[in-house]
């Protein structure tokens, strides 16, 4: 009798967690065994109300666990915060409770965008689409192909493979990222998964700018997640990927002609001298005038978050035309997933 009770209780408990345990490339997202139960977390074989036999449509299905009230995952991507709320105790150390997620949020975000040392949950001003609706994938396509791909549908599953092992070789990838994002036209890029997952930013005040993707928020050498991510992002935003010297050498593209470095290390004496003064007595010849956010590498994630930002865009920053020459939306709607208000991302490095 007791055994039956334990069995029933266990089954009820399992069924009460339809999203399963929120562990990337494990839990419901991959790592399936021959007798896996994870399928039932999202699918119904005969009674599914949504396509692909899903118990709910994307993104609502995703938000069942990763939303504001979900209990199946600690990563609340709706509000861009990490809550230690699921019952899995094995995820301890994958994030700091109540802290902002590295990718920001789709509805709210917890980002210190003005560098005042504090952050409050604030509605996002820009975010990647997640509901399958269409927008423009700016910069998608080859040089000379216009400002980007219009009618570009995007949802959670466009980028993330909920079944895990999304690499071209079947291994796990960083954040379940697909080898080739849907509709991107890219040739594929595997982003190596973290050894020890860390979903939250390292800064206790949720200051995103300067956040690295290695343990402790530090920046890694080339071929790290940051660099891999730039190459992964460029599958959609093809012409945004710019190497060193692109700011002073035209790509010949009429729109994306001169482009800020987005993948690699700044070069030139002036760039080095932002931090280093060779007249100083010993390596690394660091000067006191160097900005704390100046790094050897500049990648997409140096300035942008993946999901959504609450950064505000006033004045000139809010009236910068879009690549197709239009100016709407303007103001905060022009925040473009930036990690800081206005052109704070520029100023934090260039220190003008």
């Amino acid at each position, binding site marked *: 009798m007791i055994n039956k009770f334990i069995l029933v209780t266990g089954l009820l408990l399992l069924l009460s967690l339809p999203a399963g345990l929120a562990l990337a490339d494990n839990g419901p997202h991959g790592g399936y065994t021959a007798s896996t139960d994870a399928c039932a977390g999202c699918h119904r074989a005969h009674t599914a109300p949504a396509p692909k036999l899903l118990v709910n449509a994307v993104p609502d299905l995703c938000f069942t666990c990763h939303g504001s009230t979900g209990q199946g995952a600690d990563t609340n991507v709706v509000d861009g915060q990490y809550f230690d709320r699921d019952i899995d105790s094995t995820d301890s150390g994958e994030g700091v409770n109540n802290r902002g997620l590295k990718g920001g949020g789709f509805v709210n975000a917890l980002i210190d*965008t003005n560098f005042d040392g504090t952050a409050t949950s604030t509605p996002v001003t820009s975010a990647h689409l997640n509901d399958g609706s269409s927008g423009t994938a700016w910069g998608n396509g080859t040089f000379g192909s216009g400002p980007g791909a219009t009618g570009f549908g995007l949802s959670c599953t466009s980028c993330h493979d909920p079944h895990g092992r999304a690499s071209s070789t079947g291994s796990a990838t960083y954040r379940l990222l697909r080898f080739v994002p849907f509709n991107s036209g890219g040739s594929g890029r595997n982003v190596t998964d973290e050894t020890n997952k860390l979903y939250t930013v390292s800064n206790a005040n949720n200051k995103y700018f300067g956040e690295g993707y290695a343990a402790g928020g530090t920046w890694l050498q080339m071929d790290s997640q940051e660099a891999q991510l730039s190459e992964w992002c460029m599958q959609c935003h093809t012409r945004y990927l710019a190497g060193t010297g692109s*700011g002073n050498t035209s790509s010949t593209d009429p729109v994306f*002609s*001169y*482009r800020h470095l987005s993948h690699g290390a700044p070069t030139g004496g002036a760039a080095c001298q932002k931090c280093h003064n060779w007249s100083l007595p010993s390596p690394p010849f660091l000067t006191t005038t160097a900005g704390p956010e100046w790094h050897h590498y500049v990648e997409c994630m140096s300035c942008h978050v993946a999901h959504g930002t609450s950064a505000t865009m*006033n004045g*000139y920053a809010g009236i*910068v035309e879009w690549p197709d020459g239009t100016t709407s939306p303007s103001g905060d709607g022009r925040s473009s997933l930036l990690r800081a208000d206005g052109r704070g991302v*520029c100023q934090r490095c260039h220190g003008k």
Partner: protein
Amino acid sequence: MSRSPITISSVIIITCLFLVFGLTTIAKAQNNPHGNYSAATDACGACHRTHTGMGVALRASVEQGDDFCLNCHDGSGVPATAPVVSTHANVNFSGGSEASFQLTCIQCHEPHGTSNLSSIREAVIINTTLNLTTGPVVFAATSSANSFDDGNSNPVSHICVTCHINSENAGYPMAFHTGGVNHIGNFNYAGQNCIACHPHSADDDPTTLDGFMPIGGCTNCHAAAQDNGDNIPVGGRRAVVDEFGRTSHHVQGSVTDADCLVCHVMATHTNGYVQLKNVDNTIIYDEMVWGSFRADEISNTISKALQPFCLSCHDSDGAGGNTTPFSDGQTVPNIKGGTLWAESAHNTGETTNTGYGCLGDGSTSGCHATAHGSNINSLLAPSDGSSGSNNVNQEEGFCYTCHNGSTVAKDIEAEFMRTSHHDVNDGEQTANGSALECTNCHNPHRVKNSNRLSDPDNTQQLWAGTDTNFCLACHDGNPPAGVSFPTTFNGTGFDKSNYSGSSHSTNLDGYGCRHCHSEHGSTYGSLLVGQYRKSHHQTFTTSDYSLCWTCHNTSTVTADQSAFPEHRRHVVNQNSPCIHCHDVHAPYDVGEPGLINFVYGVTKMDVSLNGRTPSNYSTAFRAISGAQWGCYLLCHAQGNLNSDDHDPQPYSRGSADTIGNSCTTCHYSGGPAPVLTVQTVSPQFNIYLPIILKNFGREKSAIPATPPLPSAMNQPQKSSIYLPIIAR
């Protein structure tokens, strides 16, 4: 695709944002978007595009170099805060003395801002090829300390000097830009705002390469008030260019620098003291005390001393032989007029004072406020029109300032306030459509006590004709320009051209109009000096025609002692005024005896020409035969039911009429020998009348006590030479 850094729509948006978010968002300092960046600055977006740059350094448009800067600094007003500039160059400047040169914006400016004003670099790039710099430059103010050239700190710290003293700079040596104490007129400009004369664009056209070239000192600098705080002169220099756009001003049109130099000397320019030059010689008039040449501060002594300066142009040869010295091509009025101004009452003061100069406050000194311009006519004071810019204050009212019994004893203003007067009053002119000012008769630069009149047809000349002709200059049916008569009148009209040759005129020659009229105003109608009733149906009294009795005996009417034996019936019994049948100025038909003229009676009264044939003015009164004359007015028409009607009644002009005053009215024994003039027009009437000659200055005390003058002639300033007038 070229994209301007800032579009018009962008400006609208940014303006809205400015209003919403305030200064802390956009206008962080005067340098926005060039500097003073906050951690969340928006300014980068003004010039740069992170992924879609159109030029090197991620610039937002394809224009490079200075052209990129001109995307905003082109005077388009987008954004409105961007000043119009041309790069420092003389390439498109015709007045450049140096070799051709052209700088770029970033040689002096750091687009991302510095601690200096206007993002001036601390290390100014003096040679782009060699990448040589100079400095450190401190530029914290546009004048005084740490300005363009404050004259005190290290020269290399002055934004202008730091290049111009460096041999690597195109402007070195400063042979053509001496600066300092040798800049212009040996004046030291240290501490002054250089861009007042050397603006960032000489012609406000950003496409021309003429930045900081001199813009021509006078009109450009003095278009605005200048006060660099040194209290030189007190209160700073006032803006003067706009003064040439006032109601009256020298130079018709836009004043040029050359116009300024017609009168001004630049030797000590900008030291606060005005210098004027006599164009006929080398005399310089220095303003020894700041402001002492200003109309509201000038003394009459200084005003008199400056008079030759004004007259050096306002004479017959203009400015040293150039009668059109200004750019407007207008001929300089000859105020001097040989000796006319010198002899004029306003210059000499006659017996009142020592006279006046030209410049002044209009009361204690000269009449003209400034040579630049005045808000009232003829450059009169006060130039700002503070006394009121209405016509009264710039016409007769201005004259009354002195000619009201105060400065000048005779109260002309009071004369014009009398019952009848010449309509110099502005309000009356507005009401009746007339035009007449004091200066139509009296040129203030000409008249004097011995000749108070100027020629109405040429006011630059004193009047040299008879009194009668002076009046007829206007009352001849063809008044001078600027003179017009009221549209309505109460007498026989303003055209008195027929007066000449009439019996009154002939017999009163030398007396003229002023025998019966006062020139300014009178308590009697029509400016008459005595009573002369024009209305009818009023009971006759002798006083109704007291003006007539000054020459005519009352018995000519009351006792029919005249050629017309029915005067008593008409005038006394029927109460008909003289004007019923007479126009004292002229008969209707030339030569007709007795000044018979029915025009007034017909047009203004109840006399009618309708009746017997012929029935017009000429035939209403006509000779019948010999000395017999008849009247043919309706009131005399046969068969008329009016009881007074009757046939024309011929009458013979008598041979023994005694209508004149007695001989002793004019002549007396024991007095000065009279000058007698005997006219033999007719032997029938001998009327002896007092003649007022032209020696008006003679005082009453010089007139013999007896016999008494006729009452109407008893005017103190007039002559007492009596001539017999022989009339018919």
